[in-house]
């Protein structure tokens, strides 16, 4: 029983981190039609910023986390201005390549700034655990899960009931028509990038205490987040938590009991299996085209 509880706790923690990253993916995708492959490196950058604020600026842990998330919002806007806005009229492929380029720049900058040796971010709970049915679940994992639930709910409210959300939904439905009826495309795009980067930064500060902090910290989770976003259908923000948790369960619960050596592959097997049955993902919309 304790093994199962341990696996479920790991799945929910991983699912939470993935959900924050995937939510960022989807916000930008809905607002701009672009998949931002710098999202993983923004996770890493957020983790390093909090580490720097805590160790070098000697701020409290909570302050260092807040500063990192706020700074990431600003960095997201800068990213939009320099890596997206100048080329947004070009093909989607060009923009995607630009986001990959931005990812490499972030990674190289981090390596120069903080060097490449692993860092270890402080754990606010000093490794303490919650005992549940014989399992020992780190409090940091509970913090990751709880924060994610609150943040995902807040983002869903924002997208569903704010002018920004209406703009995102209008752009996702028809970009040309949205701009004709007065949707402020530039402002929406900047806010989407900013919010997305802040979510990535939050994922980074939350996950950093649970593992070694290196310049490729966010790369693996980004791939899983992409799988989660594709799994539910790239257009569905509301379903992202479900997709992310499914990926976490595939990795840690299925991966515990069935051929554990292939654990890292299970999320992608699940994604491919769903796409084989439903090519637009679990909740993807059917798009028709008049010919």
């Amino acid at each position, binding site marked *: 029983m*304790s*093994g199962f509880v*341990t*696996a479920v*706790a*790991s799945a929910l*923690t*991983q699912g939470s981190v993935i959900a924050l990253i995937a939510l960022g993916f989807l916000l930008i995708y809905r607002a701009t039609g672009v998949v931002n492959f710098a999202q993983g490196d923004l996770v890493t950058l957020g983790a390093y910023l909090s580490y720097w604020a805590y160790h070098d600026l000697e701020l409290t842990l909570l302050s260092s986390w807040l500063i990192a998330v706020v700074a990431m919002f600003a960095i997201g806007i800068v990213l939009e201005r320099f890596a997206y806005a100048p080329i947004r009229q070009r093909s989607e492929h060009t923009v995607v390549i630009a986001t990959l380029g931005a990812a490499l720049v972030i990674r190289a900058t981090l*390596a*120069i700034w903080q*060097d*490449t*040796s*692993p*860092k*270890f971010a*402080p*754990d606010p709970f000093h*490794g303490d*655990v919650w005992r549940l049915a014989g*399992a*020992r679940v*780190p409090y940091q994992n509970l913090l990751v899960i709880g924060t994610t639930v609150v943040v995902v709910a807040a983002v869903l409210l924002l997208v569903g009931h704010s002018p920004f959300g209406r703009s995102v939904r209008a752009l996702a439905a028809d970009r040309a028509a949205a701009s004709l009826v007065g949707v402020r495309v530039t402002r929406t795009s900047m806010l989407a990038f900013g919010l997305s980067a802040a979510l990535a930064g939050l994922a980074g500060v939350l*996950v950093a205490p*649970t*593992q*070694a902090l*290196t*310049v*490729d910290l966010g790369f*693996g*989770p980004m791939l899983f987040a992409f799988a989660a976003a594709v799994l539910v259908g790239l257009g569905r923000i509301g379903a992202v938590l479900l997709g992310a948790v499914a990926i976490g369960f595939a990795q*840690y619960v299925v991966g*515990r009991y069935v051929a*554990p*050596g292939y*654990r*890292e592959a299970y999320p992608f097997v699940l994604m491919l299996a769903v796409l084989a049955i439903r090519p637009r993902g679990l909740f993807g919309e059917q798009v028709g085209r008049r010919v």
Partner: protein
Amino acid sequence: MKLVALIGDKTNSRDPNAINDFNDGARMAVEDINTVGGIGGHPVEFAAVDTSPTGQDVDNSFNLALERKPTALLGPVSSTTALALLARINQAGVPILQNSTDGRLATDGPSGSPWMFGTRPRNDTSARRATEFATSVLGAKKLGLLRVDTAFGQQGSTGVKAGLAATPLVSDKSFAYNATDLTGEVSSMAQAGAQAVIDWGTPNTLALTVKTFAQQGLRDVPHIGPGSVGFSSFATGVGDPALLDNVYGAVDCNPQDDPSRPQVGAWFDRFKAKYGYAPSYGSAELYDSVLLLREVIEKAGSADPAAIRDGLKSLSGFAGICDASYANKDGFLTSQVVMGRYQNGVFKTQKVYAD
């Protein structure tokens, strides 16, 4: 006389595990040699080239090294890079003292080269010694094994199974090199009743398992890792010295605690004063690599590549800092393994397996 290391420093390397220990060891040896007039009256020059095991970087770094017309090459420290460079090494005809542990690099192994000599013990040898230590010295009656799912972990597993004798391996779990949550694997060790756990992972996963051992209530279970446990960057990275109290490592040597040879302690102090951090066995091995080259060049009276190669091939009984008696055995110049344990944050020698 030029020596070029295929090893990046942490300020310029793309390797997230890069540290300065290796090149600083070589730099110190070069300075020591030049202070007393060089080799055969010729000063020694040293340069370091960053090497990544991926893509074109391997070839590019090797080309950059060869452009400097080296007398001999030092490194790489990654077996993946050494394996990738095999054809180039054979074609270049330059002696190379590599600093990795992959048994496939043995001269008669599938990726051996007559030009390549290892300055670390083989990976499977270290794992076998760690297992023997766990059972015979620590008295573990049931062993657990955690291993990264790469050739490193696989060879470690082979070594562990060779060293088990009659002790049962009650849990054997592999994980990805970039694993971020090993709670399930570590808790399996507890559930299986492992009395000691051999953990053949990377520095990052080792730091993760050290924390997870504490979280899962396994601090009383000896946790035995490979050589990277002995690096000061590992200890400082984990942070809390209390977490390391039951962590053991199978290192190549332990320069900070070698009571049998006072000259090693003197060297340790000199290095620490010069570079501001405690040298690892990697520093000692790179230091020794340079002195080994001086030994064979002076003995042969020539810096001709073939003469150096033959000198290394017949090397026996060379006293260095890391090993008191380097000797070639199938392309590996040492098979010494030192078992150490952290005590109050300091890695203390427990047992030396000299051969």
